[in-house]
Protein backbone atom coordinates (compact mmCIF):
# COMPACT_ATOMS: atom_id res chain seq x y z
CA UNK A 1 0.00 0.00 0.00
CA UNK A 2 1.32 3.40 -0.93
CA UNK A 3 0.20 6.43 0.98
CA UNK A 4 1.54 9.79 1.81
CA UNK A 5 2.65 10.27 5.29
CA UNK A 6 2.32 13.31 7.47
CA UNK A 7 5.17 13.90 9.84
CA UNK A 8 4.90 16.46 12.57
CA UNK A 9 8.12 17.89 13.80
CA UNK A 10 8.78 19.45 17.15
CA UNK A 11 11.69 21.45 18.46
CA UNK A 12 14.27 23.60 16.78
CA UNK A 13 14.12 21.98 13.40
CA UNK A 14 15.83 18.91 14.74
CA UNK A 15 13.55 16.52 12.98
CA UNK A 16 14.42 15.75 9.44
CA UNK A 17 11.85 14.01 7.31
CA UNK A 18 12.94 10.69 6.03
CA UNK A 19 11.80 8.92 2.94
CA UNK A 20 12.62 5.61 4.50
CA UNK A 21 15.52 3.34 4.79
CA UNK A 22 17.16 4.12 1.46
CA UNK A 23 17.94 7.72 2.17
CA UNK A 24 17.96 7.00 5.87
CA UNK A 25 18.58 9.79 8.33
CA UNK A 26 15.99 11.24 10.59
CA UNK A 27 15.43 12.81 13.94
CA UNK A 28 18.09 12.50 16.58
CA UNK A 29 15.65 13.03 19.39
CA UNK A 30 13.42 15.89 20.32
CA UNK A 31 10.39 14.44 18.55
CA UNK A 32 7.19 13.94 20.47
CA UNK A 33 6.88 10.26 19.63
CA UNK A 34 7.23 7.49 22.16
CA UNK A 35 10.64 7.02 23.75
CA UNK A 36 12.63 3.82 23.68
CA UNK A 37 15.91 3.54 25.54
CA UNK A 38 18.23 0.71 24.50
CA UNK A 39 21.05 -0.29 26.84
CA UNK A 40 24.02 -2.06 25.29
CA UNK A 41 25.28 -1.65 21.72
CA UNK A 42 26.17 -5.23 20.89
CA UNK A 43 24.48 -7.39 18.28
CA UNK A 44 21.20 -7.40 20.23
CA UNK A 45 20.92 -3.79 21.34
CA UNK A 46 22.26 -2.08 18.21
CA UNK A 47 19.95 -4.16 16.00
CA UNK A 48 16.96 -3.38 18.21
CA UNK A 49 17.78 0.36 18.12
CA UNK A 50 18.05 0.43 14.32
CA UNK A 51 14.94 -1.65 13.69
CA UNK A 52 12.73 0.25 16.16
CA UNK A 53 13.59 3.38 14.21
CA UNK A 54 13.05 1.76 10.79
CA UNK A 55 9.87 -0.08 11.64
CA UNK A 56 8.28 2.88 13.39
CA UNK A 57 8.81 4.92 10.23
CA UNK A 58 11.29 6.93 12.30
CA UNK A 59 8.52 8.11 14.66
CA UNK A 60 9.71 6.43 17.85
CA UNK A 61 12.66 8.16 19.51
CA UNK A 62 15.49 5.78 20.28
CA UNK A 63 18.44 6.45 22.59
CA UNK A 64 21.21 3.86 22.73
CA UNK A 65 23.37 3.86 25.86
CA UNK A 66 26.76 2.24 25.28
CA UNK A 67 30.08 2.91 27.03
CA UNK A 68 32.34 1.93 24.12
CA UNK A 69 33.18 4.30 21.30
CA UNK A 70 32.96 1.57 18.64
CA UNK A 71 31.48 -1.87 18.18
CA UNK A 72 34.12 -4.60 18.41
CA UNK A 73 32.85 -7.95 17.15
CA UNK A 74 33.31 -11.08 19.22
CA UNK A 75 32.69 -13.22 16.12
CA UNK A 76 35.97 -13.09 14.13
CA UNK A 77 37.94 -11.93 17.20
CA UNK A 78 39.54 -15.39 17.47
CA UNK A 79 41.13 -14.60 14.10
CA UNK A 80 42.85 -11.61 15.70
CA UNK A 81 44.17 -13.90 18.44
CA UNK A 82 45.39 -16.27 15.71
CA UNK A 83 47.08 -13.40 13.88
CA UNK A 84 44.94 -13.68 10.75
CA UNK A 85 42.92 -10.47 11.26
CA UNK A 86 43.52 -7.12 12.94
CA UNK A 87 41.38 -5.21 15.43
CA UNK A 88 40.54 -2.73 12.67
CA UNK A 89 38.99 -5.62 10.70
CA UNK A 90 36.53 -6.39 13.50
CA UNK A 91 35.74 -2.82 14.63
CA UNK A 92 32.79 -0.77 13.34
CA UNK A 93 31.89 2.76 14.45
CA UNK A 94 28.37 3.50 15.70
CA UNK A 95 27.95 6.65 13.63
CA UNK A 96 25.67 5.15 10.96
CA UNK A 97 23.05 4.39 13.60
CA UNK A 98 22.85 8.15 14.13
CA UNK A 99 23.47 9.36 10.57
CA UNK A 100 21.22 6.90 8.78
CA UNK A 101 18.69 6.02 11.42
CA UNK A 102 18.56 8.92 13.84
CA UNK A 103 19.47 6.89 16.91
CA UNK A 104 20.70 9.14 19.72
CA UNK A 105 23.96 7.68 21.05
CA UNK A 106 24.83 8.26 24.69
CA UNK A 107 28.29 7.07 25.70
CA UNK A 108 27.62 6.06 29.26
CA UNK A 109 26.52 3.22 31.55
CA UNK A 110 23.13 2.70 33.15
CA UNK A 111 23.40 2.38 36.93
CA UNK A 112 19.78 2.04 38.06
CA UNK A 113 16.38 1.38 36.55
CA UNK A 114 13.17 2.76 38.02
CA UNK A 115 10.57 0.54 36.37
CA UNK A 116 7.69 2.34 38.12
CA UNK A 117 8.63 5.81 36.93
CA UNK A 118 10.15 4.40 33.72
CA UNK A 119 13.46 6.18 34.10
CA UNK A 120 17.03 4.94 33.86
CA UNK A 121 19.86 6.71 35.66
CA UNK A 122 23.30 6.95 34.06
CA UNK A 123 26.74 6.86 35.68
CA UNK A 124 27.11 10.53 34.71
CA UNK A 125 24.07 11.29 36.87
CA UNK A 126 21.78 12.08 33.94
CA UNK A 127 18.38 10.44 33.70
CA UNK A 128 16.60 9.12 30.63
CA UNK A 129 12.84 8.60 30.69
CA UNK A 130 11.38 5.81 28.55
CA UNK A 131 8.11 4.32 27.45
CA UNK A 132 9.81 1.00 26.83
CA UNK A 133 13.30 -0.07 27.84
CA UNK A 134 15.34 -2.63 25.89
CA UNK A 135 18.29 -4.15 27.74
CA UNK A 136 21.00 -6.06 25.93
CA UNK A 137 23.64 -6.18 28.66
CA UNK A 138 25.47 -9.27 27.42
CA UNK A 139 27.28 -11.43 29.94
CA UNK A 140 29.48 -10.82 32.94
CA UNK A 141 31.75 -13.30 34.67
CA UNK A 142 31.20 -15.27 37.89
CA UNK A 143 34.53 -14.17 39.37
CA UNK A 144 33.42 -15.20 42.86
CA UNK A 145 34.00 -18.83 41.82
CA UNK A 146 37.73 -18.12 41.34
CA UNK A 147 39.17 -16.53 44.52
CA UNK A 148 42.69 -16.14 43.12
CA UNK A 149 41.40 -13.89 40.38
CA UNK A 150 40.42 -11.27 42.99
CA UNK A 151 44.07 -10.45 43.72
CA UNK A 152 45.45 -7.18 42.47
CA UNK A 153 46.60 -7.41 38.87
CA UNK A 154 45.30 -10.98 38.40
CA UNK A 155 42.82 -10.04 35.70
CA UNK A 156 45.55 -8.24 33.73
CA UNK A 157 47.76 -11.28 33.78
CA UNK A 158 45.25 -14.11 33.29
CA UNK A 159 42.97 -13.07 30.44
CA UNK A 160 39.54 -14.25 29.30
CA UNK A 161 39.45 -12.34 26.00
CA UNK A 162 35.76 -13.31 25.91
CA UNK A 163 34.64 -9.74 25.29
CA UNK A 164 36.39 -8.57 22.16
CA UNK A 165 38.54 -5.52 22.73
CA UNK A 166 41.66 -4.76 24.76
CA UNK A 167 41.92 -8.35 26.03
CA UNK A 168 41.86 -9.71 22.48
CA UNK A 169 45.00 -7.72 21.71
CA UNK A 170 46.59 -8.54 25.06
CA UNK A 171 46.11 -12.31 24.60
CA UNK A 172 47.64 -12.11 21.15
CA UNK A 173 50.68 -10.36 22.68
CA UNK A 174 51.02 -13.06 25.35
CA UNK A 175 51.05 -15.73 22.64
CA UNK A 176 53.62 -13.80 20.62
CA UNK A 177 55.82 -13.44 23.71
CA UNK A 178 55.56 -17.13 24.66
CA UNK A 179 58.72 -19.09 23.80
CA UNK A 180 58.49 -22.00 21.37
CA UNK A 181 57.92 -25.17 23.35
CA UNK A 182 55.53 -23.40 25.74
CA UNK A 183 52.00 -24.39 26.69
CA UNK A 184 48.85 -22.31 26.19
CA UNK A 185 46.07 -23.59 28.48
CA UNK A 186 42.45 -22.53 28.05
CA UNK A 187 39.64 -23.37 30.47
CA UNK A 188 36.03 -23.61 29.29
CA UNK A 189 33.12 -23.16 31.73
CA UNK A 190 30.05 -25.37 31.98
CA UNK A 191 27.39 -24.49 29.40
CA UNK A 192 25.48 -22.27 29.01
CA UNK A 193 28.02 -19.62 28.13
CA UNK A 194 28.43 -17.06 25.34
CA UNK A 195 29.28 -18.62 21.96
CA UNK A 196 29.35 -22.42 22.48
CA UNK A 197 31.86 -23.20 19.67
CA UNK A 198 34.02 -20.13 20.38
CA UNK A 199 36.58 -21.77 22.70
CA UNK A 200 37.15 -24.64 20.28
CA UNK A 201 37.59 -22.22 17.38
CA UNK A 202 40.08 -20.31 19.51
CA UNK A 203 42.02 -23.52 20.17
CA UNK A 204 42.23 -24.04 16.38
CA UNK A 205 43.38 -20.46 15.81
CA UNK A 206 46.11 -20.65 18.45
CA UNK A 207 47.16 -24.07 17.13
CA UNK A 208 47.29 -22.68 13.61
CA UNK A 209 49.57 -19.87 14.80
CA UNK A 210 51.78 -22.32 16.70
CA UNK A 211 51.98 -24.66 13.70
CA UNK A 212 53.35 -21.76 11.64
CA UNK A 213 55.48 -19.90 14.18
CA UNK A 214 56.12 -22.11 17.23
CA UNK A 215 55.74 -25.75 16.22
CA UNK A 216 57.05 -27.17 19.49
CA UNK A 217 54.30 -25.44 21.49
CA UNK A 218 51.07 -26.95 22.78
CA UNK A 219 47.42 -25.97 23.10
CA UNK A 220 45.79 -27.56 26.12
CA UNK A 221 41.98 -27.36 26.32
CA UNK A 222 40.55 -27.94 29.80
CA UNK A 223 36.78 -28.20 29.42
CA UNK A 224 34.33 -28.33 32.36
CA UNK A 225 31.81 -29.99 30.05
CA UNK A 226 31.53 -33.73 29.42
CA UNK A 227 32.46 -33.23 25.78
CA UNK A 228 32.92 -30.55 23.12
CA UNK A 229 29.65 -28.57 23.30
CA UNK A 230 29.31 -27.62 19.61
CA UNK A 231 30.48 -29.04 16.26
CA UNK A 232 32.34 -31.70 18.26
CA UNK A 233 33.32 -34.20 15.54
CA UNK A 234 34.43 -31.37 13.22
CA UNK A 235 36.69 -29.75 15.80
CA UNK A 236 38.10 -33.09 16.94
CA UNK A 237 38.92 -33.96 13.34
CA UNK A 238 40.77 -30.65 12.94
CA UNK A 239 42.78 -31.26 16.12
CA UNK A 240 43.62 -34.84 15.18
CA UNK A 241 44.56 -34.15 11.57
CA UNK A 242 45.62 -30.53 11.19
CA UNK A 243 47.08 -29.98 14.64
CA UNK A 244 48.33 -33.42 15.59
CA UNK A 245 50.75 -33.18 18.51
CA UNK A 246 49.78 -29.57 19.17
CA UNK A 247 46.22 -29.71 20.56
CA UNK A 248 45.23 -31.81 23.55
CA UNK A 249 41.61 -31.90 24.69
CA UNK A 250 40.62 -32.86 28.25
CA UNK A 251 36.95 -32.94 29.29
CA UNK A 252 35.37 -32.81 32.78
CA UNK A 253 37.86 -30.29 34.12
CA UNK A 254 36.01 -27.90 36.40
CA UNK A 255 38.21 -24.96 37.33
CA UNK A 256 38.09 -24.11 41.05
CA UNK A 257 40.82 -21.52 41.33
CA UNK A 258 43.78 -19.87 39.63
CA UNK A 259 47.23 -19.53 41.18
CA UNK A 260 48.18 -16.45 39.23
CA UNK A 261 51.73 -16.06 40.61
CA UNK A 262 52.43 -19.76 39.98
CA UNK A 263 50.71 -19.67 36.56
CA UNK A 264 48.72 -22.73 37.60
CA UNK A 265 45.10 -23.82 37.15
CA UNK A 266 43.35 -25.77 39.91
CA UNK A 267 40.50 -28.21 39.34
CA UNK A 268 37.97 -30.02 41.51
CA UNK A 269 39.05 -33.61 40.77
CA UNK A 270 42.00 -33.30 38.41
CA UNK A 271 45.63 -32.46 39.01
CA UNK A 272 46.69 -28.81 38.78
CA UNK A 273 47.99 -27.65 35.41
CA UNK A 274 50.88 -25.21 35.04
CA UNK A 275 51.18 -23.43 31.71
CA UNK A 276 53.00 -20.51 30.13
CA UNK A 277 49.87 -18.68 28.98
CA UNK A 278 46.64 -19.12 30.95
CA UNK A 279 43.39 -18.22 29.22
CA UNK A 280 40.56 -18.57 31.71
CA UNK A 281 37.03 -18.28 30.34
CA UNK A 282 35.06 -18.06 33.59
CA UNK A 283 31.46 -19.11 34.17
CA UNK A 284 29.02 -16.52 32.93
CA UNK A 285 25.70 -14.96 33.85
CA UNK A 286 23.59 -12.08 32.54
CA UNK A 287 25.30 -8.71 32.48
CA UNK A 288 25.75 -7.08 35.91
CA UNK A 289 23.01 -4.51 35.26
CA UNK A 290 20.41 -7.25 34.76
CA UNK A 291 21.54 -9.12 37.85
CA UNK A 292 21.71 -5.98 40.04
CA UNK A 293 18.23 -4.88 39.00
CA UNK A 294 16.64 -8.24 39.80
CA UNK A 295 15.88 -9.18 36.20
CA UNK A 296 17.99 -12.36 36.31
CA UNK A 297 15.24 -14.55 37.72
CA UNK A 298 16.52 -17.94 36.53
CA UNK A 299 18.98 -19.09 39.24
CA UNK A 300 19.87 -15.41 39.69
CA UNK A 301 21.85 -15.95 36.53
CA UNK A 302 19.76 -15.44 33.39
CA UNK A 303 16.75 -13.26 32.54
CA UNK A 304 13.43 -14.94 31.78
CA UNK A 305 11.48 -13.32 28.97
CA UNK A 306 8.27 -13.70 26.98
CA UNK A 307 9.58 -14.91 23.62
CA UNK A 308 6.86 -13.05 21.69
CA UNK A 309 8.05 -9.65 22.89
CA UNK A 310 11.24 -10.25 24.91
CA UNK A 311 9.50 -8.43 27.75
CA UNK A 312 11.01 -9.40 31.09
CA UNK A 313 8.95 -11.74 33.25
CA UNK A 314 10.09 -9.65 36.21
CA UNK A 315 9.39 -6.08 35.04
CA UNK A 316 6.76 -4.49 32.82
CA UNK A 317 7.88 -2.36 29.88
CA UNK A 318 11.41 -3.72 30.23
CA UNK A 319 12.64 -6.01 27.46
CA UNK A 320 15.78 -8.14 27.70
CA UNK A 321 17.54 -9.86 24.83
CA UNK A 322 20.78 -11.36 23.62
CA UNK A 323 23.18 -13.46 25.67
CA UNK A 324 21.65 -12.41 29.00
CA UNK A 325 18.36 -14.28 28.60
CA UNK A 326 17.37 -17.71 29.81
CA UNK A 327 17.58 -19.34 26.40
CA UNK A 328 14.96 -21.60 24.85
CA UNK A 329 15.93 -25.26 24.25
CA UNK A 330 18.41 -25.52 21.39
CA UNK A 331 18.94 -21.76 21.19
CA UNK A 332 22.61 -20.79 21.42
CA UNK A 333 23.97 -17.63 22.98
CA UNK A 334 25.38 -16.16 19.77
CA UNK A 335 25.74 -12.82 18.05
CA UNK A 336 23.56 -14.06 15.20
CA UNK A 337 20.85 -15.06 17.65
CA UNK A 338 21.08 -11.70 19.46
CA UNK A 339 20.64 -9.93 16.11
CA UNK A 340 17.48 -12.00 15.56
CA UNK A 341 16.26 -11.25 19.09
CA UNK A 342 16.82 -7.55 18.35
CA UNK A 343 14.47 -7.59 15.36
CA UNK A 344 11.80 -9.69 17.05
CA UNK A 345 11.90 -7.39 20.08
CA UNK A 346 11.93 -4.24 17.90
CA UNK A 347 8.84 -5.38 15.99
CA UNK A 348 7.03 -6.15 19.24
CA UNK A 349 8.01 -2.84 20.85
CA UNK A 350 6.84 -0.89 17.81
CA UNK A 351 3.55 -2.84 17.83
CA UNK A 352 2.99 -2.29 21.55
CA UNK A 353 3.75 1.44 21.34
CA UNK A 354 1.37 1.89 18.41
CA UNK A 355 -1.54 -0.08 19.83
CA UNK A 356 -0.99 -3.19 17.72
CA UNK A 357 -0.74 -6.84 18.60
CA UNK A 358 2.80 -8.26 18.36
CA UNK A 359 3.48 -11.03 15.87
CA UNK A 360 2.23 -14.27 17.40
CA UNK A 361 4.40 -16.53 15.25
CA UNK A 362 8.03 -15.43 15.27
CA UNK A 363 10.42 -17.67 13.36
CA UNK A 364 14.12 -17.06 12.94
CA UNK A 365 17.41 -18.85 12.53
CA UNK A 366 20.95 -19.17 13.75
CA UNK A 367 24.06 -19.46 11.63
CA UNK A 368 27.47 -19.79 13.19
CA UNK A 369 30.78 -20.19 11.39
CA UNK A 370 34.03 -21.31 13.06
CA UNK A 371 37.46 -21.04 11.46
CA UNK A 372 39.53 -24.19 11.98
CA UNK A 373 42.47 -22.59 10.11
CA UNK A 374 43.11 -19.25 8.41
CA UNK A 375 40.75 -20.21 5.55
CA UNK A 376 38.74 -23.33 6.33
CA UNK A 377 35.45 -23.12 8.15
CA UNK A 378 32.74 -25.28 9.69
CA UNK A 379 29.18 -24.10 10.42
CA UNK A 380 26.19 -24.98 12.55
CA UNK A 381 22.74 -23.72 11.54
CA UNK A 382 19.25 -24.02 13.02
CA UNK A 383 15.72 -22.65 12.64
CA UNK A 384 13.60 -21.72 15.66
CA UNK A 385 9.85 -21.01 15.79
CA UNK A 386 7.47 -20.01 18.54
CA UNK A 387 5.43 -22.81 20.06
CA UNK A 388 2.21 -21.31 21.45
CA UNK A 389 1.49 -24.31 23.68
CA UNK A 390 4.94 -24.46 25.22
CA UNK A 391 5.24 -20.66 25.19
CA UNK A 392 8.84 -20.85 24.09
CA UNK A 393 10.92 -21.10 20.95
CA UNK A 394 11.51 -24.61 19.63
CA UNK A 395 13.87 -25.91 16.98
CA UNK A 396 11.93 -26.77 13.82
CA UNK A 397 12.24 -30.55 13.38
CA UNK A 398 14.30 -31.55 10.34
CA UNK A 399 15.94 -28.15 10.02
CA UNK A 400 19.54 -27.21 10.66
CA UNK A 401 22.79 -29.13 10.76
CA UNK A 402 26.53 -28.76 10.47
CA UNK A 403 29.10 -28.76 7.65
CA UNK A 404 30.03 -32.17 6.28
CA UNK A 405 33.68 -31.11 6.58
CA UNK A 406 35.78 -27.98 6.97
CA UNK A 407 36.04 -26.13 3.67
CA UNK A 408 37.36 -22.97 2.07
CA UNK A 409 34.07 -21.99 0.37
CA UNK A 410 32.46 -21.60 3.77
CA UNK A 411 35.50 -19.59 4.81
CA UNK A 412 34.51 -17.04 2.21
CA UNK A 413 30.86 -17.20 3.28
CA UNK A 414 31.93 -16.72 6.90
CA UNK A 415 33.68 -13.45 6.04
CA UNK A 416 30.65 -12.34 4.00
CA UNK A 417 28.39 -13.34 6.90
CA UNK A 418 30.42 -11.07 9.18
CA UNK A 419 30.29 -8.03 6.90
CA UNK A 420 26.56 -8.57 6.36
CA UNK A 421 25.56 -9.00 9.99
CA UNK A 422 27.72 -6.04 11.01
CA UNK A 423 25.93 -3.94 8.40
CA UNK A 424 22.50 -5.28 9.37
CA UNK A 425 23.24 -4.44 12.99
CA UNK A 426 25.03 -1.11 12.60
CA UNK A 427 24.61 0.44 9.14
Amino acid at each position, binding site marked *: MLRRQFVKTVGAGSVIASSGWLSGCATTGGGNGPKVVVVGGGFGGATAAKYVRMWS*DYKINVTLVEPNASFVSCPMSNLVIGGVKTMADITTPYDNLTKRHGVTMVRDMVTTIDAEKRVVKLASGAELPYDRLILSPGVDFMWETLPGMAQAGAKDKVLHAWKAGAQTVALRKQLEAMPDGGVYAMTIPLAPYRCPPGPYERACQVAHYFSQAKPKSKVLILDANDDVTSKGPLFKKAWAERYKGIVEYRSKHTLTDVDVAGSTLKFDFNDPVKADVLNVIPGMRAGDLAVKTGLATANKRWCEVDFLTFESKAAKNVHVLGDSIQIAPGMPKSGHMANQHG*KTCAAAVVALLTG*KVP*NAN*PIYNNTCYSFVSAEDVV*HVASVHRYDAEKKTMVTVP*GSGGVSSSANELEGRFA*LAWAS*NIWADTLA
Partner: protein
Amino acid sequence: MNSWIKVTAGAALALSATWASADELQVRGMAAACASCHGTYGIAQPGMESLAGQPKEDLLKKMLDFKSGKKPATLMHQLSKGYTDEQLEQLAGYFSALKK
Protein backbone atom coordinates in the same frame (compact mmCIF):
# COMPACT_ATOMS: atom_id res chain seq x y z
CA MET B 1 7.19 22.93 10.87
CA ASN B 2 5.29 20.28 9.02
CA SER B 3 6.62 18.38 6.11
CA TRP B 4 5.08 16.00 3.66
CA ILE B 5 6.98 12.92 2.81
CA LYS B 6 6.66 11.40 -0.56
CA VAL B 7 6.74 7.68 -0.30
CA THR B 8 8.87 6.02 -2.91
CA ALA B 9 7.91 2.64 -4.27
CA GLY B 10 10.99 1.02 -2.80
CA ALA B 11 10.26 2.17 0.69
CA ALA B 12 6.60 1.28 0.53
CA LEU B 13 6.87 -1.89 2.53
CA ALA B 14 8.98 -0.25 5.15
CA LEU B 15 6.70 2.70 5.56
CA SER B 16 3.49 0.72 5.54
CA ALA B 17 4.77 -1.33 8.41
CA THR B 18 3.01 0.42 11.24
CA TRP B 19 -0.43 -0.08 9.74
CA ALA B 20 0.27 -3.43 8.13
CA SER B 21 -1.88 -6.43 8.90
CA ALA B 22 -0.81 -9.11 11.34
CA ASP B 23 0.08 -11.36 8.40
CA GLU B 24 2.25 -8.68 6.84
CA LEU B 25 4.06 -8.13 10.14
CA GLN B 26 4.60 -11.86 10.42
CA VAL B 27 6.15 -12.03 6.94
CA ARG B 28 8.24 -8.91 7.54
CA GLY B 29 9.60 -10.40 10.74
CA MET B 30 10.29 -13.73 9.09
CA ALA B 31 12.11 -11.98 6.23
CA ALA B 32 14.14 -9.83 8.61
CA ALA B 33 15.71 -13.04 9.91
CA CYS B 34 17.21 -13.53 6.43
CA ALA B 35 18.73 -10.03 6.59
CA SER B 36 21.47 -11.10 9.00
CA CYS B 37 23.24 -12.70 6.01
CA HIS B 38 21.41 -11.23 3.03
CA GLY B 39 21.33 -7.59 4.14
CA THR B 40 18.75 -5.25 5.61
CA TYR B 41 15.71 -5.33 3.28
CA GLY B 42 17.51 -7.95 1.19
CA ILE B 43 20.35 -5.74 -0.06
CA ALA B 44 23.53 -7.65 0.74
CA GLN B 45 27.12 -6.64 1.27
CA PRO B 46 29.61 -8.19 -1.19
CA GLY B 47 30.01 -11.96 -1.02
CA MET B 48 26.38 -12.74 -0.23
CA GLU B 49 23.41 -12.81 -2.59
CA SER B 50 20.97 -9.87 -2.55
CA LEU B 51 17.35 -11.00 -2.46
CA ALA B 52 15.64 -7.64 -3.00
CA GLY B 53 13.83 -7.25 -6.31
CA GLN B 54 14.53 -10.73 -7.60
CA PRO B 55 11.63 -12.34 -9.47
CA LYS B 56 9.35 -14.17 -7.04
CA GLU B 57 9.35 -17.37 -9.13
CA ASP B 58 13.17 -17.48 -9.16
CA LEU B 59 13.46 -16.97 -5.41
CA LEU B 60 10.80 -19.55 -4.65
CA LYS B 61 12.30 -22.12 -7.01
CA LYS B 62 15.74 -21.66 -5.44
CA MET B 63 14.44 -22.11 -1.92
CA LEU B 64 12.28 -25.11 -2.82
CA ASP B 65 15.25 -26.67 -4.62
CA PHE B 66 17.44 -26.08 -1.58
CA LYS B 67 14.75 -27.67 0.57
CA SER B 68 14.40 -30.76 -1.65
CA GLY B 69 18.16 -31.13 -1.99
CA LYS B 70 17.99 -30.58 -5.76
CA LYS B 71 20.19 -27.48 -5.52
CA PRO B 72 23.54 -27.97 -3.77
CA ALA B 73 24.20 -25.68 -0.82
CA THR B 74 26.52 -25.17 2.12
CA LEU B 75 23.76 -24.46 4.61
CA MET B 76 20.65 -23.21 2.79
CA HIS B 77 19.42 -26.79 2.47
CA GLN B 78 19.42 -26.96 6.27
CA LEU B 79 17.78 -23.56 6.82
CA SER B 80 15.10 -23.92 4.11
CA LYS B 81 13.87 -27.11 5.78
CA GLY B 82 12.83 -24.96 8.74
CA TYR B 83 10.14 -23.23 6.69
CA THR B 84 6.90 -24.51 5.15
CA ASP B 85 6.44 -24.17 1.39
CA GLU B 86 3.84 -21.50 2.12
CA GLN B 87 6.32 -19.55 4.24
CA LEU B 88 8.93 -19.82 1.48
CA GLU B 89 6.37 -18.43 -0.98
CA GLN B 90 5.61 -15.55 1.38
CA LEU B 91 9.33 -14.81 1.70
CA ALA B 92 9.79 -14.91 -2.08
CA GLY B 93 6.87 -12.54 -2.52
CA TYR B 94 8.18 -10.16 0.12
CA PHE B 95 11.73 -9.93 -1.25
CA SER B 96 10.59 -9.68 -4.88
CA ALA B 97 8.55 -6.58 -3.96
CA LEU B 98 11.55 -4.77 -2.47
CA LYS B 99 13.59 -2.35 -4.53
CA LYS B 100 17.01 -3.59 -5.69
